[in-house]
């Protein structure tokens, strides 16, 4: 039983990590129907920004909580700036182009950002500072779930709730839903669609940056390549849950994380990816738009 609970929390932690990144994929897809492959790189840039800020602040002897908040804020702002710029430079000019063009542009952006960080920073793995310490009250259950793991779980839950509220009850949320349903019609009723798209990219990128900080603190190391693999997994999770749907992204991430953890725990970690992707294929056969996805006839 203990072992089951341990694996359950391993899976939830993994799922929550995927969810932090998957939310950005799903939001962008929901609004403009584009798979933003550069999103994983935004997450990586968030991790690097928080690394740099945290390192500098700890030299000046700031308290840990202040470092976490300032590094998180800086990473969110900086990554949002990247997200905003990427949309303006790489996607906006292609908005009327066939759907494949912005997709290729996104892959190009992803490769560009990876190599940019590689050249501007380093190819080495960097040790990420311990931003989330081992909480004393967690010690009795530290063997089940680590302090970083529980932090990620809580943050993901809060973020998902806030995002749902934002989309449901605020004016910009309403505008987002309208844009997602019909861009032209939204424009005709006076919604500034460009602004809505920019805001979506800013929120998604900010989330990825927070994810970058938390996940890097959990793993303890970063390099320029971390965004790629995490991005692929998060993208898979978003598709599994139904791309375009916010609760779907979280659900898909948790299912993916749990599948991987239980496959590792009860069968073999050699096959964790086999099980994860078999599950994806299986679900897409019966529900092509994902678990919570809306049926849509217009597909790539």
């Amino acid at each position: 039983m203990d072992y089951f609970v341990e694996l359950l929390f391993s899976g939830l932690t993994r799922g929550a990590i995927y969810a932090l990144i998957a939310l950005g994929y799903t939001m962008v897809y929901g609004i403009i129907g584009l798979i933003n492959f550069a999103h994983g790189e935004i997450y990586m840039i968030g991790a690097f920004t928080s690394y740099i800020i945290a390192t500098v602040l700890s030299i000046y002897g700031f308290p840990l909580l202040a470092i976490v908040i300032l590094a998180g804020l800086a990473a969110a702002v900086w990554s949002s700036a990247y997200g905003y710029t990427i949309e303006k430079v790489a996607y906006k000019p292609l908005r009327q182009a066939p759907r494949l063009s912005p997709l290729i542009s996104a892959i190009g952006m992803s490769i560009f950002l990876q190599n940019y960080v590689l050249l501007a920073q380093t190819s080495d793995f960097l040790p990420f500072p311990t931003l989330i310490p081992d909480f004393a009250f967690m010690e009795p259950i530290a063997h089940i779930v680590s302090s970083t793991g529980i932090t990620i779980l809580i943050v993901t839950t809060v973020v998902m709730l806030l995002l749902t509220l934002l989309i449901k009850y605020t004016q910009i949320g309403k505008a987002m839903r309208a844009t997602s349903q019909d861009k032209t019609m939204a424009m005709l009723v006076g919604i500034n669609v460009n602004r809505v798209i920019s805001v979506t990219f800013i929120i998604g990128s900010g989330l990825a940056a927070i994810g970058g900080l938390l996940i890097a603190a959990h793993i303890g190391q970063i390099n320029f390549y971390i965004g790629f693999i995490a991005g692929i997994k998060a993208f898979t999770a978003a598709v599994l849950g139904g791309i375009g749907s916010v609760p779907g992204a979280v659900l898909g991430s948790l299912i993916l994380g749990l599948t991987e953890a239980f496959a590792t725990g009860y069968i073999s970690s050699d096959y964790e990816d086999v099980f994860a992707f078999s599950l994806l294929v299986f679900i897409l056969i019966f529900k092509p738009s994902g678990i919570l996805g809306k049926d849509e006839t217009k597909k790539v």
Partner: protein
Amino acid sequence: MKRTIGGKMISVAAAATFALSLTTSGFAADTVKIGVAGPHSGDLASYGLPSVNAAKLVAEKINADGGINGKQIELLIEDDVCKPEVATNTATKLVSAGVDTVLGHICSGATKAALPIYNNAGILVMSPSATNPDLTKSGEYPNFFRTIAPDDAQAKVDVDFALDTLGYTKIAVIHDKGDYGKGFAEFAKKYLEESGKAEVVLFEGVTPGAVDYSAIVQKIKRSGAEAVMFGGYHPEASKIISMMKKKRLKADFISDDGVKDQTFIKVAGEDAEGAYASGPKDTAGNPLAKMAVQEHKDTFASDPGAFYQNAYSAMLAMVNAIKVADSTELAALKTALQNEKVDTPVGNIYFNEKGDAVGVGFSVYQVQDGVFVEM
């Protein structure tokens, strides 16, 4: 391509020589081109760049002394980022640039992919670091030599250490599914089982780059292993060892020379303390090794990195073979390498008919206060 052009040039040169009754050597080119291939960028660059430095230092020295039999060494440096699919391009590029021999590649997977291309062109390849046993033992790569002991020798050293010195009876063997890591892990498992002294309680591969290793760590814990033997490189090793500490798993960590890198200690920090990793024998007592380190310090103002001594030795062995054979033909070089002993930083070595250097070996190191200490 290279051979036909070379052949034509040789015959032209020979005809000219004959006609003018001059006594020149049969070489067509006036330099010896040595390719240097390995990861020079990317996350494993720290394994490849020290070899480039070694090649430069040796080439500079030989050239200053008048070259190999009067011919200057020219280095052609190409990046393969440790990836098999890139390595084949790297090899093709070097072959078409007309290299005579190659120092490299660094990673076993990349080396394996590149070797057939060099073999078709009849080019000798000597790696300072590719330790996959198949490279020499399978007999499929007759043009391959190396100045490092293969993984099975390394796995044997690790297993003997774990059983005889540390006295473990339950060991979990984990690997990263790559050519290098899995090869090491399979040999470790084989030797552990053959010894009859210990039980392999778990044998599994992890996916490199995964965001969280807690599930596999829980599994290691449940298996009751007293030690984890890991085959793979340092990025995964530091993630696993940190997660073991986070999950309060008190098992020792024993690994290979893919982990015996200062980056492992830098990234894992305190979690790395007490971990064991095998690596090439400490050759600090060898005067040639001391000299090689001093040259590096003088030229690059830093301590040399991983496989530096092996690369330095490989360069010396190749240069010596070309000199003795007075040719860069594969067959002549092979004979020279197998028969001529040469003094190098890793010892006085020669090569067996499989291509492994006789006279080099591994020892086990432990992380103590942030540095690897030979046990």
